[in-house]
């Protein structure tokens, strides 16, 4: 029983972290119909920024992540405004190819600048854990989890309550109509992409604190984001959170009761089963699929 409880707690925490990684990916896909294959690269880049901040200025990663977010926001904004916007009207394959190329460049660039050495942002407390009977709750992961939930709630509030957020939503639903209403779609797209990259950067700093990273880890985060976004469903800001938590739990429970090497297969199996019964994902909305591309 304590094994089950421990697996559940750990799975939830791990799922929160996955959600934070995937939330930006889901946002960009939902609003702009861009599957950003460079997303994992953004995550790792954020981890490096957090690492540098910690190494050079002794900045705690839970503060350093705001620097990561800021740097990545600017990077994402510029990338979208001046590069991806050029092909945004093309078929999805073109943006897919473009972001795939970007990913190769970002990963190889990080290999050159930071080398392929494995790193971790060391703190005195992240590996400590709170003990509840026989169940341990690791502090670093708990903080990251709380952050993931807070960010998601904040994102929902921003999107639903602010003018900027509403313009993001409107552009995502019908770009033509949004333009007619005076929304500057280019700016809104760049803003969306910037926010997504910033969130990826934050997630990266967290990953760097509780785990290890090097440039080649980027691909696995892109893949995980893809799974989480599809599973949770697009068009709903809570989609990534739900998807992340489900994947985290499935992997933890699967690891507990099945041979440990089956966990990835199990995660994809759950994805397939969910898509059979709910093609739009667990909490996704159908109307996003039928939107007008103008």
């Amino acid at each position, binding site marked *: 029983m*304590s*094994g089950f409880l*421990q*697996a559940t707690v*750990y799975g939830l925490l*791990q799922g929160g972290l996955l959600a934070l990684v995937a939330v930006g990916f889901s946002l960009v896909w939902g609003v702009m119909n861009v*599957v950003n*294959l460079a997303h994992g690269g953004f995550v790792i880049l954020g981890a490096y920024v957090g690492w540098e901040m910690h190494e050079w200025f002794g900045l705690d990663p839970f503060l350093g992540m705001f620097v990561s977010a800021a740097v990545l926001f600017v990077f994402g904004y510029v990338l979208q405004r001046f590069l991806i916007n050029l092909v945004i009207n093309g078929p*999805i*394959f073109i943006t*897919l*190819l473009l972001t*795939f190329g970007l990913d190769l460049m970002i990963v*190889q660039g990080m*290999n050159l600048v930071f*080398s*392929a*050495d*494995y*790193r*971790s942002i*060391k703190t005195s407390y992240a*590996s*400590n*854990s709170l*003990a509840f009977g026989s169940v*341990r709750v*690791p502090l*670093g*992961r708990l903080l990251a989890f709380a952050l993931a939930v807070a960010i998601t709630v904040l994102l929902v509030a921003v999107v639903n309550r602010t003018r900027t957020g509403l313009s993001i939503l409107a552009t995502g639903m019908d770009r033509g109509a949004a333009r007619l209403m005076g929304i500057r779609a280019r700016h809104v797209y760049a803003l969306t992409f910037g926010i997504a990259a910033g969130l990826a950067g934050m997630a990266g700093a967290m990953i760097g604190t*509780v*785990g*290890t990273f*090097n*440039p*080649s*880890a980027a691909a*696995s985060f892109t893949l995980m984001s893809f799974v989480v976004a*599809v599973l949770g469903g697009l068009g709903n800001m809570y989609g990534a959170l739900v998807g992340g938590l489900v994947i985290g739990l499935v*992997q*933890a429970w*699967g*690891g*507990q009761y099945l*041979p*440990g*090497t089956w*966990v*990835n297969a199990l995660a994809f199996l759950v994805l397939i089963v969910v*898509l059979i019964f709910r*093609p*739009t994902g667990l909490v996704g909305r*159908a109307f*996003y*699929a039928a939107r007008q591309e103008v």
Partner: protein
Amino acid sequence: MRSRTLAVAVVITASSLVVAGCGSKGEAKSANAAGSGTLAIGASLSLTGSLAREGVLTQEGYQLCQEKVNAKGGVDIGGTKVKLDIQYQDDTSKPDVAAQLVDQFNDKGIKLILSSYGSANTEAQAAVIERNGQLMVDSAGADNKIFSKGYKRTFAVLSPATEYAASIVKAIAELATPKPKSIAFLSADDGFSKTVTEGGMKAAKAAGFTVLDPQYFPNGTSDVSSALTKVKGQHPDVIIGSVHLVEGVAIIKQAKELGVTPAGFGESVAPPTPDFAKTLGAQAENVLGSSQWTDATKGTDKYFGTAKDYAKDIQAKYNHAPDYHNAEASAACLALVLAAEKAGSSKADAVRAALSGLDTESFFGTIKFDSTGQNLYKPMSVIQIQNGKALTVWPTESAEAKMIWPGTK
């Protein structure tokens, strides 16, 4: 929506195939052994992709060997000194590309090959080498499986996979007081790590330990929490990981998070890598690890001198402490050079005959091959992280420090 998702999946698969297909980067210079005063050797290396870190260390080892040999005038082939010319190609950490590159070298007439990094790449290469009548010295493919297929043209300078965890078990059995009773193995699920686990479990049973059921997790994962949760209730005295760096770091980190506290941790491959202690800091203290080579290894040779000399050369040239991946690469290159000199020829068949009879001391220890091409004559060293440094604690005759036990406080 569904068709779009499908299309996306298709494109991702297709693009990764394309990348695998055009993985080789850069053109090798066309040089040949005959008449040009150079001895051309081909080396496919994992310079990008998931094995980039180890691939670069391997390249450093090959490169240092080339410089050392050429600084002494080159390889003495039948009285004529020819310069060593190692040609590198990037296999992007993919076995199929590594194998293709061996074919490409063959097309250029290059018959002598130094292996890529890791068992998967080397295994793929070995089959091609055999077919083409080339000759390969393997620097980093330790899986015994490579040598169970009857190949005659692949020789490994390093100790086989079965020794990695077994040597840690032997060190603990010999040196740990109070002697632990039970051992749990946590293992990645790639062929190499599984062979490491099998060898370790066999040695543990032979030494009288209670061996718990091994727990496997996907190769390259950074989350081993399920395996740790499973063994936590069984309270093993020792946890041994058959892992690479990522999983090895994850075991130590997550064991602390989950409150798993055996008397000691041991891990193959990860602890001797400088990144291990750097990444984990204080948590790395007293973790045991097995290493193909340390700078306390006994032996000397004419090109590199002693292990200490080798360590100095790596530090001076590459500005980092030597890693055993450097050393095994240099040793593979050394074996090929010594065999070519002994054969007095650069022809693959003649060098092969010389290699199979090679029996020499070197900075890497004994280099000698059994009938399958493995080097069973060199013991592995067991190191322990003490004050952030990997110090040799076993075998005792080359120990730099006493083993601290129990390793976890």
